[in-house]
């Protein structure tokens, strides 16, 4: 059975290929086709998971891919272990939910085949990434994931913003990929293998230590920073909202952003070789969590709020990983995948109903969209980390890991972030669902094909937490004995819960009770508000870098190429023509000049030869 794992990614790929080739001829069937492919993938993944639950061990299977002189043999191989099995399930499950949901959400779009082909390809890439047994293969799927995000974010290519956002996503993540690629090359150079299992062994054997280990780890982490939208490469994710909402759900929950976290987890042994690198990871994670959460507080676009929320939550995961909380990080990834998909689908449902993204244009939708508001509430509670929802357990695990590592500053940041998280998500919830309805935006409930996936996800978001311990234990087996188990603590969950309550209360006061005017707050802390609204001016800084620096530099180079490098060539040509015109003057047309030249030539020749001869004779 495990040997058949390759079928899991292949099914969506085949579906994508079929749909892409048939195109408009299967407009109606496209969604069904791809969804069923993913469904079968999910079934196989589940069987795999069950098998591994019974017998948790690391399985590999490989096929030769290319051989080159110089002792290089690359292979295509699969690595099936608890981590990948878990990820397979979550990826295929979330994908399935989203595809089913999309059947309804995209039912009017004439470009559905393309859409579903992309979605399916996305799923394939992510499944492949999860299964890859070596860094090169992983990088390949990693890039494919990036490609799919590009295609899907820019799905409505006629919208300039969408096209731009897709491009931005691809390029920004590619910036991180650069580090990833260099890291991979460096690993290949240092350890002479790309196989993940062998790498782990090599690292444990102490073949990679010190500064080199840190360099490698940080380069690899650069890839994760890009993909998982960590500071300072997080800027693409909010813009990625220009894609269709289910795509956002997919990107945020199960595929794109998860890839970075997954990669760090997958290569965790490498990272553990460098405590410095782990420290960097944890601080970047923590910083990202906090900054993104604050930015989420001032967004007006429902999807952007969720996007910043994702960035923030990914920061949590990184924070956990950086503090050694391997299982905590992955577990948070799982729960987050469920509830963030849920939140996005719900947001999509709302947008589908009211055709706007601005939360201030919504309001009171709780009355007309009961299911949606209910599942949103579930998602919000999970996100805020309220017992007994899944988020509570995973966030708890993260904070525990942080506390366990002894970094109090990060713990404080984590708790603060929890508070802010709770605030912004309820700000959203109250504004959209409880306030007076905005004029003409009454909304209606979405069809079953959309609500059913939401309900399923809500269910999982609610109950997943209860299996926190076994899942974490199961995941830990991927690392073998190395998994550090965080101890139990009563204080941390309590603190987190209190922080969540504070956030909730604050949001309640401001956006439900309206006891405190949001506008007043914005005016009082205008500098802070400006800072947050402008995303700490990070985007602007990038704009400046790219526009003013890179493009200007490229124009300077183009000028240089045209006028200096090519100018030299044209100069030579000009010189030749001028020489020709000049030499032409020698031919004055006068016989006497010709004869003079003849005689002069003879004279010069005679003098030169005789002088040369005597000079040669004079030599000793």
């Amino acid at each position: 059975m495990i040997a058949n794992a390759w079928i899991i990614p292949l099914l969506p790929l085949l579906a994508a290929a079929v749909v892409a080739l048939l195109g408009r001829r299967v407009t109606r069937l496209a969604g069904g086709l791809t969804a069923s492919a993913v469904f079968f993938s999910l079934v196989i993944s589940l069987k795999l998971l069950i098998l591994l639950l019974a017998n948790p061990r690391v399985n590999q299977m490989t096929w030769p891919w290319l051989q080159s002189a110089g002792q290089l043999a690359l292979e295509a191989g699969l690595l099936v272990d608890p981590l990948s099995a878990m990820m397979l399930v979550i990826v295929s499950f979330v994908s399935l939910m989203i595809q089913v949901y999309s059947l309804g959400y995209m039912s009017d779009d004439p470009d559905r085949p393309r859409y579903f082909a992309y979605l399916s390809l996305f799923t394939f890439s992510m499944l492949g990434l999860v299964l890859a047994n070596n860094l090169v293969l992983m990088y390949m799927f990693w890039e494919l994931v990036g490609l799919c995000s590009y295609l899907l974010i820019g799905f409505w290519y006629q919208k300039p913003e969408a096209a731009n956002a897709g491009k931005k996503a691809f390029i920004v993540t590619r910036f991180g990929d650069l580090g990833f690629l260099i890291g991979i090359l460096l690993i290949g150079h240092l350890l002479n293998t790309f196989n993940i299992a062998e790498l782990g062994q090599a690292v444990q054997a102490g073949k990679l230590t010190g500064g080199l280990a840190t360099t490698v780890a940080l380069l690899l982490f650069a890839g994760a920073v890009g993909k998982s939208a960590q500071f300072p490469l997080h800027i693409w994710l909010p813009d990625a909202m220009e894609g269709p909402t289910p795509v956002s759900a997919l990107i945020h929950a199960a595929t794109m952003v998860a890839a970075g976290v997954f990669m760090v987890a997958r290569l965790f042994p490498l990272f553990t070789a460098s405590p410095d690198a782990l420290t960097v990871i944890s601080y970047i994670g923590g910083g990202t969590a906090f900054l993104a959460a604050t930015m989420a507080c001032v967004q007006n676009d429902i999807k952007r709020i969720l996007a910043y929320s994702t960035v923030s939550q990914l920061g949590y995961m990184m924070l956990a990983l950086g503090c050694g909380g391997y299982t905590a990080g992955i577990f948070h990834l799982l729960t987050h995948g469920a509830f963030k998909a849920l939140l996005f689908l719900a947001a999509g449902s709302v947008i589908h109903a009211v055709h706007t993204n601005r939360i201030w244009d919504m309001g009171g939708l709780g009355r007309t969209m009961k299911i949606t508001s209910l599942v949103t509430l579930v998602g919000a509670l999970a996100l805020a980390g309220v017992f007994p929802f899944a988020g509570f357990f995973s966030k708890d695990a993260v904070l525990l890991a942080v506390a366990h590592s002894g970094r109090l500053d990060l713990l404080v940041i984590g708790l603060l972030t929890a508070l802010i998280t709770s605030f912004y998500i309820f700000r959203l919830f109250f504004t959209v669902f409880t306030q007076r309805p905005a004029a003409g935006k009454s909304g209606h409930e979405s069809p079953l094909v959309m609500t059913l996936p939401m309900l399923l996800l809500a269910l999982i978001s609610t109950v997943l937490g209860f299996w926190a311990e076994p899942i974490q234990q199961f995941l830990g087996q991927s690392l073998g004995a190395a998994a550090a188990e965080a101890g139990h603590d009563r204080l941390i969950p309590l603190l987190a819960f209190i922080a969540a309550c504070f956030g909730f209360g604050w949001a309640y006061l401001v956006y439900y009770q309206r006891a405190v005017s949001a506008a007043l707050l914005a005016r009082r802390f205008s500098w802070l508000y400006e800072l947050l609204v402008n995303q700490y001016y990070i985007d602007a800084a990038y704009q400046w870098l790219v526009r003013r620096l890179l493009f200007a530099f490229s124009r300077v180079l183009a000028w240089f190429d045209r006028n200096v490098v090519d100018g030299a060539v044209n100069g030579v040509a000009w010189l030749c023509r001028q020489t020709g015109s000049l030499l032409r003057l020698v031919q004055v047309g006068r016989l006497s000049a010709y004869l003079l030249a003849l005689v002069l030539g003879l004279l010069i020749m005679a003098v030169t030869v005789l002088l040369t001869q005597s000079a040669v004779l004079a030599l000793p």
Partner: protein
Amino acid sequence: MTAWLPLLPEFIIVACLGAVLLADLLLPRDRSRRVLAGVALAGTLLALVAVAALPDGSFGGVYAADGVARLVKILVLAALGLVVLSAWTWDQTWKRPMGEFWFLLLSAGLGMMVLASGQELITLYIGLELATVPMVLLTAYCPADRKSAEGGLKFLILAAVGSGVLLFGLSLLYAAAGATRLADLAQALVGRSLEPMVVIGLLCVLVGLGFKVALVPFHLWVPDAYEGAPTPVTAFLSVASKTAGFVLALRLLAGAFAALSREWGMVLAVLAAATMTLGNFAAIPQTNLKRLLAYSSVAQAGYLIMGLVAGDTLGLSALLYYLAAYLPTNLAAFAVVIAIEQASGSTDLAAYAGLAQRSPRLGLVLMLALLSLAGIPPLAGFTAKFYLFTAVFGQGYVWLVVLAVLNSALSLYYYLRVIRAVYIQPPERLPATGVAVAWPLALVLTATLIGILLLGVFPGLVVESARQAVQHLL
């Protein structure tokens, strides 16, 4: 009687001269006078057959029918035949008596044949004059055309001064060596390369040769004479005269003055460099195709003389092969020039605009000829250049080869300008029905085209016999 057998080709030409003269007197003055051209052609072909068929031989030790002579005579006679064909219909264009024209052409050819075979200074000198004087007269053959007369006069005076300087040099060498046979000269001059009088004599000879083969700075007559002369004459001048000049240089320098090879080698290397460079540069701004080809032939002389600079078997056989390759190439170009001149009355580059669209075959021939001149494969000029450069490189003249290959690239610039007019520019002045080509000219075009391709792809046809001939010589 058999002693005279090696002279059979020359006798055929002399007989042909008589026949032309006689027929010219007897025939009425109308178009039937084209029979004269037929006579000239027949004589040439007959001589060609004789040259090819006769075995090696010599006449009184002053005249040798050896391999080099055979090869060069074949070239000269081939050129002669092709030029006769090219000038076949020119009686209409020129409105000049043709009998004398054929006579002069044939006698020039005779002189060149003598240059190819002469083994002795006096014979060579007479051959040189016989090859030059009729050419001067042919250049000035249409004195009503100012250019023709002016070109002729310039050619004449420079030729006379050139041969005067050559003679002065020969007289000094004669005074030093006391011999007129090349073999005796060679022996007498061994070990005397440091004698100043010998050196002066040698340099005077080099000036005379330089004039004949158009080396800078003795080339100045070339553009004017080439442009002024009637085009078939230019064609003959550029091919046969050059060939004869080079074989003279070969006989004198590599034969008689072999002992002075260090001196003339050094001088010729510098002259070669100057010649190819100046020729190419000066060709760039030209707008008249005849003049452009004149400068191009100056540049070609610069390449050719490198064969002598190399001086070994490889170099001299390369020289001969290059001459062989140069013949169809340049004649093809001039044949097209003739066709256009007959059609439009102009040799300006502007007259060639759009030729490829009006007359694709003419355009193709001109393009291939020019590309062969530039040394582009798989044409004759390429293989010849490659062979030549290889030979020169082998003698250690790396700088000269570098210069020569750069010059080849540069020369492509102006050749391409012509090709641009022919292929890229839209037709302007050419008749929409295409350029009419009379059958003799068509024959020339075909033959030269075949020659260009054949010599390029199967260099062995000429190279082997050239090699054997040169080996025999050295």
